[in-house]
Structures are given as C-alpha cells and as structure tokens.
C-alpha cells in the first residue's frame, strides 16, 4: 500500500504551491472547511437520535419511578433520578433472597467455557488454513465464512431438528450402543447450551484469527526453524506470542454477544435451569411491571462490558491505523 502512494506522488511544483498554502496539512487545502464534516452529519444525527437518545431513555427508566400499575415512569431530569430500582436489583443479586445470582454466575461460566472451546478449536482451524491451506485455501475460506450468511436462527433450528428425542443424534448414539435410551438433549442441559454458543459464535473467532495468522511473515517461522527450533517450539515461541492481540480480540468478539444471548438458550434448552443474563433481560422486558428491572440489568450489563468493548474498539482502531 505504501508503494502505491509513493508511485502516484504528484510532481514537485504542485507540492510547493500546496505547502505554501498550508504547510502542516497538505490535504485539507482545496476543500472548504465544512466540506468533509457535512458528509458525517446525517450519520451523526441518526446516531444521536436513535442511539444516544435511547440510552438516555434507558437511564431515565432505570433511575425512574413506576405508576400505580407498576408501569415504568421515566424521570427525564437527572437531578430527580432515584436509585430505588437499582437497590431492588442489587437486593436480588446480593441480598438474602438472591434469586438472580445463579443466572449471573451461570452466564460467566458458560461464556468462559464456550469462549475457551472457541479459542482452542478456532485457533487450530485458523492456523491450519493460513499455514497449510495451499491450493485449497479459497475453498476452505468459503466454507469458513459460510456460517456468516446462514441465519443464526437457522443454525440453531438445525440443532433443534437433530437433538430431538427421536432426532438423528440420539439415533446415531443408540445405533453405536453408547446410550441405552434417547437423551433429552433439549431439556435444560448446560452442555447443549454451551455447544450451541460455540456453534453460533466460533466463526467470529476464526476469521479474525485467520486474518492475523495469514499476515505473519513466513520468513520469521523459517528463521526460527533454521536456527534449530522444532515445529512445536517455533509455534510456542514465535507464532503464539505474535498472535496474542488477535487472540484477545477474538475472545472479546465472541464473548460480547454471548453475554447478551438469550435465544440460543431459549431454542436449545428453554428451561430455568440454564437461564442466563440475556434471559433475565428478555423475560423482564416481556412481563408487565418489570420494565425498570430490564432497564437496570441492561445498564449493569453495559457497564460490565464497557472494558472489553473499549479494548476491542481500540485494538481495531490501531489495526486500521497501522495499515
């Protein structure tokens, strides 16, 4: 990319004229000041009205009050905000009757296990395709990205079909004599939910990892091998340390949606035994009188995910700036 730029460097006279006009920034010369910002205005206004404003409403509901029928009454003036709903939810999280707590702990557990599986399998696959894909690389890539345009719901529906009591999975396992009678996979099995999460989100891990591993200079690995390191040692001492940022970014990008996921759970388990944070929010939104609770949990989830989100945003910024 940098060569392309130097190729088309304009001849010197123009350069001089431009540097006289504005020595520090050569590009902004011939555009009026308002020119580029005006392109960003529609998008910015859209996001202000339909992204920032909704968050203000969420805060107003979370810090607001309720009417006689326990319908949320948003309080628009921040100086009248009350923390009653927050105290209520904190009581349900940490108090003596902490019936929301198991779902939170479960969420962390499921997300940790599912992300770990995504990382191990995803790394191996991305590594193989980037290093040894060879002539079949294009085919492998098409197969790897195919889940992106298959609807998430369809991918879950496929497992609902397979995991029914009389579905193909049970029949295969029975045929192999591994289980005496059909297992009820879809009735509140944590394993099913975790596998569903892995199945749903692992493509988001593989593609960035692949993109990163593919850019590692093969000469570095060759040098390591020439200096006598075994393949395993080369991997552990060269490839793995180099790919640390991609691993972190991948873990963030798969775990963020998992924290807000409720549909995987509802489709593959639909049982209170596997409730996650996303289900708490979704159930609260759906039931009358619990609007404020939904808003409070959304605010808490948002605060909790702020650090990984900021990390991811910074890392992508850095990556695009480095190109």
């Amino acid at each position, binding site marked *: *990319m940098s060569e392309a730029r130097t190729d*088309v460097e*304009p001849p010197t006279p123009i350069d001089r004229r431009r540097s006289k006009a504005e020595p520090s*920034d050569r*590009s902004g010369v*011939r555009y009026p000041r308002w020119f*580029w*910002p005006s*392109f*960003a205005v*529609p*998008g910015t206004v859209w*996001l202000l009205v*339909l*992204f920032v*404003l909704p968050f203000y*409403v969420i805060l107003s509901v979370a810090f607001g009050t309720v009417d006689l029928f326990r319908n949320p009454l*948003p309080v628009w003036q921040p100086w009248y905000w009350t923390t009653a709903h927050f105290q209520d939810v904190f009581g349900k999280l940490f108090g003596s009757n902490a019936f929301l707590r198991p779902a939170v702990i479960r969420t962390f557990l499921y997300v940790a296990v599912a992300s770990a599986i995504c990382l191990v*399998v995803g790394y191996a696959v991305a*590594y*193989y395709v980037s*290093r*040894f894909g060879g002539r079949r690389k*294009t085919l492998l*890539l098409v197969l790897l990205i*195919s*889940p992106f*345009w*298959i*609807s*998430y*719901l*369809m*991918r879950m*529906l*496929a497992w*609902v*079909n*397979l995991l029914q009591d*009389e579905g*193909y999975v049970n029949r295969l396992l029975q045929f192999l004599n591994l289980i005496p009678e059909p297992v009820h996979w879809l009735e509140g099995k944590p394993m099913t939910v975790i596998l569903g999460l892995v*199945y749903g989100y692992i*493509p988001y891990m593989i593609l960035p990892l692949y*993109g990163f591993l593919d850019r590692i200079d093969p000469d570095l690995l060759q040098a390591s091998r020439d200096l006598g390191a075994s*393949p395993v040692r080369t991997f552990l001492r060269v490839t793995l340390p180099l790919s640390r940022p991609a691993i972190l970014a991948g873990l963030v990008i798969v775990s963020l949606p998992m924290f*807000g996921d409720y*549909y995987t759970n*509802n489709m593959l388990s639909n049982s209170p035994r596997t409730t996650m944070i996303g289900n708490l*929010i*979704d159930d609260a939104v759906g039931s009358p009188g619990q609007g404020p609770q*939904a*808003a409070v949990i*959304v605010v808490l*989830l948002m605060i909790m*995910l702020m650090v990984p*989100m900021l990390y*991811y*945003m910074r890392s992508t*910024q850095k990556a*695009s700036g480095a190109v």
Partner: protein
Amino acid sequence: MSETVATRAGMPELAATQPVARGFRRWWKDPWRKPRFLEALTWAYLAWSIVPVAIAVLLSFNAGRSNTTFQTFGLRWWFDDPDGESLFQDEALRTALTQTLKLSVITMLIAVPLGVSFALGLDRWRGRGSGPANFLMLLTFVLPEIILGVAMLLVVRFLLTFVHLGTTAQVLGLVTFQISYPVIIVRARLLSIGKEYEEAAMDLGAPPRQAIRRVLLPLLYPAIFASFAIVFADTIDNFVTVRYLSGPASSEPLSLKIYTVARGAATPAVNAAATFMLGSSTVAIALGYIAYRYLSRGQRAGVQEFTAQV
C-alpha cells in the same frame, strides 16, 4: 535392538510393535511431516459446522410431517401441502416472507447511503467531533444486540411515541444496528485508495464535488456493492432488534416465526422458511461478490480480498 527382542522367547509381539513405535517416533520427530492432526481437525470442524444446516435444508424437502426424520423427497412444505400449511400457502408465513424482504430492502437502501457518506466524513474530517462520532459508530458495532434492542424499544415507547411499533420502528432499529458495516467496509477501501486520485482530478481542474462523484465514488463501487449485499443478508437474518420492535402480527418477519415455532409443533414448513432465508442471503452475497469482482477487475480481487472486505 530389534534382534535381541526377537530372540527373547515368549514376546514375539513386542518384536512386531518395536519398529512401529520407532517409526512413529521418527514420524513425530520429522520436522517436515504433514500436519495430519490439524488437517483432520479442520475438516471435522467444517463438517460439524455445515452438515447440521445441510440436514435442516434437506428436511424442508421432506414429504412427511416430521422435521426430525427424512422420509421421502417432496415439495409439500414449500407450496404443496394438502392442509395449506406450507411456506407459500400459509397466510401468516407468506406475510412474514414479504415482511422479511421489505425490511431488508428498506434497511439496505437507507443504511448503505448513510453509511457511505458517514465513512467519507469520518475518514477525511479531522476536527473536533469526528472522534466522538467515530466512537459512537464503533460502539453500535460491538454492542450486544439485546442492549440496543431494549434501548430502542424504550425510546419508541416513552419518547418518540409518534413512531409506531412495527415496520417503521423496525427499520429505524435495523439501520442503527447495520450502519457500521458500510462505514467499516468503505473506510477500509478509502484507506487503500488514498487521496491521490481525487487530488489529481482537482489538479486537472475538477471542483471537489465533481472529483468525488466522478473519481472517488467509482473507486468505491466495489465496497459499496459489498455493503449492499452484506446489509441485505444480515437484515434477513436479524431477529433480536426486529423482535423487540415488532408491532402487529403482520410485522413479524420469517426469523421471528422460526423462533416462535421451532420448539413448538413445528412442521418442515419452518425448515422451508429457514431455507428460503438462506437462499436469499446466498443470492445477495453472490450478487455482491460478482459485482465486486466486476467492478474491481484489473485489481487483485479474489475471494480472499472479498472476505477481507467482509
């Protein structure tokens, strides 16, 4: 060593395994051996990721009532069910199908122009305000969809009450959620184009507006078409935002029908609906890819570059 083992009476089998073990050790130590294990794992992963969906597609062509067991081939659940419960016969499913396509087209037509203009602005505007605007855009990209969905629902319910739940609210929510895709794709392309072409155009006397319309925009076409395809395909699959912002039953798209019916008394018509969505997304992506190839001919533009855009 193998001779001494072989002479030892009563342990002939060891003699046989010894060379195998040594062969294994040599194979293991060989620095240039092929990564058989990784290869097997990769293909196993691909099979695991694709076969279930393939079976789901197959079940939509089931002639029987079951959506767990394939009996014989038939198009009954597409348009030929005696009870009229198939995808193209059932009134509710047909409405949902129209709604899916309607939402996708409208969202695409709003989100892509908005995003392209936003990308140009963010890329070239170096002043106060560009930082926060960029931050907001990236935040919509990483935020779990449920947070955005609930926020949109509350804003429509309490503040922007003139927006009705249903198609309008759904489109507003979808565009907010999708706008980051065209921005990210177009910015990546802008970065690789550089500023030289438009500067050359302006050196030759073109006013800024014309330099953009006649020079920069055509250079951006591949990214713009890729954005159209991706936003369209992704909106077809969208379900969280669309669900929270849906109003009357007629505003429920196919994805929502699949979600509500999947764990109930589902017939293969649900699989047909899912397959239809898959087909639409595939066509959109394929068209986007062809347009991308055609518009960026002469440059390095294969699947790998296209996926880099995605």
